[in-house]
């Protein structure tokens, strides 16, 4: 490679390669606290022949960054020499607010954090909180939560499918996937009242039971949805342009993926069979019969195949859950935690006192801490909550799968062309709300 000025400069001023295998380059000299210290002008070198590298921002406001991610790329012509990601442009202090809210008041925060998987987050938070309270939920509530989690996985993968297709150039799958999403939205809206910010669960149960006739709507969706998956499959899986644009990009071997802490489709595409529903089951997932798709090469094409297969497996789980939905109460009848029904609260004195205590102070968990991981569409998601006995958690930590998945982007992107950066970034399926919390 022609010795560009920078490599010459690097050879002079630095001590070789750092552990990341990059030329250790002395910055403009920073002191301990990070502010720059004045340094004298390096001697002028003769102009070299190689092309100059260019620093460009694929910045906060960009159609392909799926939110407000900013990637600073150092480009040699079209090849990415180095990628420096900047996150934090959507940091809204979720974890700080969590320490000022009661447990049932935190549920609306879990929708807005990973807004593609909002009802899935509600389920994850409710499970974590019930582990903290030491509660066992009713059978009907368990199956309803499995239905909610799988519906949420489907709509999250559909947004990923739509936006990835737009990034790589196919616009029609975006309209197909959003058409299917609207059907799921109508289901969620009739159940919970909101399309996107569902806030569907409470500690110890659900906000509302499903209206009658909802199961027919769900069965209709389960019947019609695989046709759309097959349509997209026919259009993309063996499409020469799609395969040409995605094969061999951003490859992560199994060892690297595990070491980088990737999770979900990113990890399974590299061949590591880790699915929280199978390895650390919750909501009786072990009683459902479904498969976990595993890729082999860990590139963008494998992630596409894994997510498409996961859509089909989710439909399979929904089918089994719809068949086995038992009757019975949705909420635990433990007055310490769940509001008594309005009729009882108005009639007998004790329920009124419980109702008053619940509303004024909110349920109080025993002192302790709990972390329950859930298989969210992006990966291993969980809420680590520490409680000191008061009605507000001491610490409400969100384990962000996209944040850890995205931290591997410099390794995946360097060496590829600029247009591949967009395809790799789309394959990670990032949601900035969850990354920046």
């Amino acid at each position, binding site marked *: 490679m022609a010795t560009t000025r920078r490599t010459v400069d690097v050879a002079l001023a630095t001590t070789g390669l750092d552990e990341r295998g990059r030329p250790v380059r002395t910055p403009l000299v920073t002191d301990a606290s990070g502010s720059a210290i004045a340094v004298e002008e390096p001697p002028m070198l003769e102009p070299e022949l*190689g*092309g*100059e590298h*260019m*620093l*460009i*921002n*694929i*910045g*906060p*406001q*960009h159609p392909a960054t799926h939110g407000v991610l*900013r990637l600073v790329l150092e480009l*040699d*012509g079209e*090849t990415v020499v180095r990628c420096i990601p900047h996150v934090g442009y959507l940091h809204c202090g979720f974890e700080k607010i969590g320490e000022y809210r009661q447990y049932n008041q935190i549920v609306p925060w879990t929708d807005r954090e990973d807004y593609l998987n909002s009802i899935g987050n509600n389920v994850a938070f409710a499970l974590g909180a019930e582990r903290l309270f030491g509660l066992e939920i009713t059978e009907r509530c368990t199956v309803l939560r499995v239905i909610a989690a799988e519906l949420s996985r489907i709509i999250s993968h559909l947004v990923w499918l739509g936006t990835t297709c737009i990034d790589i150039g196919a616009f029609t799958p975006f309209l197909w996937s959003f058409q299917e999403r609207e059907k799921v939205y109508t289901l969620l809206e009739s159940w919970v009242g909101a399309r996107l910010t569902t806030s569907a669960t409470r500690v110890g149960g659900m906000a509302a039971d499903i209206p009658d006739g909802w199961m027919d709507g769900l069965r209709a969706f389960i019947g019609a949805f695989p046709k759309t998956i097959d349509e997209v499959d026919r259009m993309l899986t063996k499409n020469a342009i799609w395969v040409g644009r995605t094969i061999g990009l951003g490859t992560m071997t199994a060892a690297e993926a595990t070491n980088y802490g990737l999770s979900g489709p990113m990890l399974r595409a590299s061949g590591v069979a880790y699915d929280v529903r199978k390895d650390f089951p919750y909501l009786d997932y072990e009683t459902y019969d479904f498969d976990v798709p595993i890729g082999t090469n860990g590139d963008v094409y494998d992630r596409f195949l894994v997510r498409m297969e996961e859509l089909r497996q989710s439909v399979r789980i929904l089918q089994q859950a719809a068949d086995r939905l038992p009757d019975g109460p949705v909420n635990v009848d433990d007055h310490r935690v769940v509001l008594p029904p309005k009729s009882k609260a108005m009639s007998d004195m004790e329920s009124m006192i419980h109702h008053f205590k619940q509303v004024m102070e909110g349920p109080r968990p025993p002192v302790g801490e709990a972390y329950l991981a859930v298989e969210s569409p992006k990966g291993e998601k969980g809420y680590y909550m520490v409680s000191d006995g008061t009605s507000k958690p001491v610490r409400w930590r969100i384990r962000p799968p996209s944040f850890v998945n995205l931290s591997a982007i410099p390794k995946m992107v360097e060496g590829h062309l600029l247009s591949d950066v967009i395809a790799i970034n789309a394959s990670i399926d990032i949601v900035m709300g969850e990354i920046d919390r």
Partner: protein
Amino acid sequence: MSRTYLPVLLLMGFVVFNAILMIGLSHLTMRSRPTPVKQSAYESGIPALGEARERFSVKFYMVAMLFIIFDIETVFLIPWGAYFRNLSCAVPLVNGVCPSGQVSLFGLAEMLVFMAILIVGFVYVWKKGALQWD
């Protein structure tokens, strides 16, 4: 003979007039309100570092030149194709058809020679590795 060119000239005239009209009108009615930020480069909302007018590596220029060469080669095919019937007939056509037995290979041979020259250039470029991107 000149009359057959009239429609093309009319079309070209209309196109030029239309372009001048659009650019001129918008130039006249435009009120430009320049501010320092509006003048600076837009790079996804972040002040840009360094400017884009830099020296790029030579391989971009090479690919562009090769494209132009082989593109113009195809451009020459079009008139040849249109006139091919006349070319490959020893005697002038009889109401558009070449009398039997008079078909000559002149038209084809002429283009093959032209193509051969370019194929030699193409093989040279291929072997030199100019088509290799990185």
